[in-house]
């Protein structure tokens, strides 16, 4: 993202557009990544209920993945999952394998 100069931004730190939190890609904060074992997932969507960042993707009422652009890696989903289908793994390690085994 190109940062703007002081003449180009609203005064006082005001944010004058609604719904702009999507522009803030909080996934960069993550040091632990949730990895889902789809064999254990029952699509109960308890993770979706608890996720504070709306980062659980759902399609046709079924779990469809984790939006890593916004997932901060808090681990609440892993903690709440009744089937223990979500494991938090080291983000740096996970990045090494990003292109072969994970939704990103």
């Amino acid at each position, binding site marked *: 993202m190109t*940062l*703007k*100069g*002081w003449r180009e*931004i*609203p*005064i*006082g*730190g*005001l*944010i*004058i557009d*609604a719904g702009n939190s999507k522009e803030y890609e909080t996934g960069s904060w993550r040091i632990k990544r949730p990895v889902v074992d789809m064999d254990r997932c029952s699509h109960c969507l308890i993770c979706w209920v608890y996720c504070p960042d709306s980062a659980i993707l759902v399609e046709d009422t079924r779990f469809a993945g984790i939006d890593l652009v916004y997932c901060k890696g808090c681990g609440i989903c892993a903690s709440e999952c009744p089937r223990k289908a979500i494991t938090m793994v080291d983000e740096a390690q996970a990045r090494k394998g990003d292109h072969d085994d994970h939704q990103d």
Partner: protein
Amino acid sequence: MTTRTEYVKGTPVALDGDRAVAEAMRQVNPDVVAAYPITPQTEIVQRFSEFVANGEVDTEFIAVESEHAAMSACIGASAAGGRAQTATAGAGLALMWEVTWVAAGTRLPIVMHVVNRSLSAPLNILCDHSDSMGVRDAGWIQLYAETIQEAYDDAIQAVRIAEHPDVMLPTMHTLDGFVLGHSLERIEVLPDEVVRGFIGTYNPRYSLLDVDHPVTFGPNDYHDYFFEHRRQQIEGMERALDVIPQIGEEFGALTGRRYGLVEGYQLDDADFAIVALGSINGTVKVVVDELRRQDRKVGLLKVRSFRPFPADKVAQALGGKRAIAVLDRSFSFGAQAHPLFLEVLTALYTHGFTPGMANYVFGLGGRDTLPWQIRQVYDDLAELEGVVSAPVRYLTVRE
């Protein structure tokens, strides 16, 4: 054929400084006033709450539990698009300190009436400028009054200055506690409709109550944009250097009382000058008149706007003087010299002037400063050519 300029006729009344400010507030009729009483400002709040109780204003008056709450309530009211005002002094202003930065950083044109009082301890309710100097870096415009008339006029102009689209900064104007706050002076109070016409209507560009254009006030702002927002505040201050005298001229065209950033008194041909803020300027003028009758070339530069500090105007007014004394009614412990002196010295040096200079601290905790003591300062100046005097001198302090 010449036409005489007709000024608006004010009503001459005897008012003390606090009542004069309360009167200006009544005429401005702010949307919200949130304030907590503290000596020597109490009478402003007391009087204004009477106006509220009597239905003479439409203001929502919030009797808060502290000055921190007073400023916080003003911030909320101003962010909601209202005209918000408060008044305080001394320890009250100190308690507000944190939120004065929030008001300025959020660019809310709040107006604050400050009746200068020293800071404890030892406990003291009398005048010095430690309170307003304590918030001099917070991003507020600061105007200092010499007389009660000026305090009344500043209270009205402050609204226009703060809300000017080029400025959008909270504005405090000060009057010396007791010396002006509780002394009677004959002043001219403008007709209500003239004040209302002068200040006009505030149309905020952004407002929390404008539900069709939702706005977030006060979000997190870190390394990526915080500095840019500070730079904008600096710009607002710099533009205020143009706006303050523009509004002062407009006020003068209406009332005959013109205001700028500084006021020179017998300064043009003076060799020796005093620079000061606040009510002491009146005493200095008396001494200048006396010494002029003895053919001594002495003058005065009264600084009205301390923030923004009008460095160009100060250098222009003082450049070429042989020696200058700067009077500070506040103190920065451990500093080489005190707030006004350091500003004046910097202004002169950066404009290429190196006159003799001395810094006098006076009047701390309400100590009277009398004409003979000011005469002594002018006498000292004659020996100061070409020297920047150190250490700082303390007027009237006993050894």
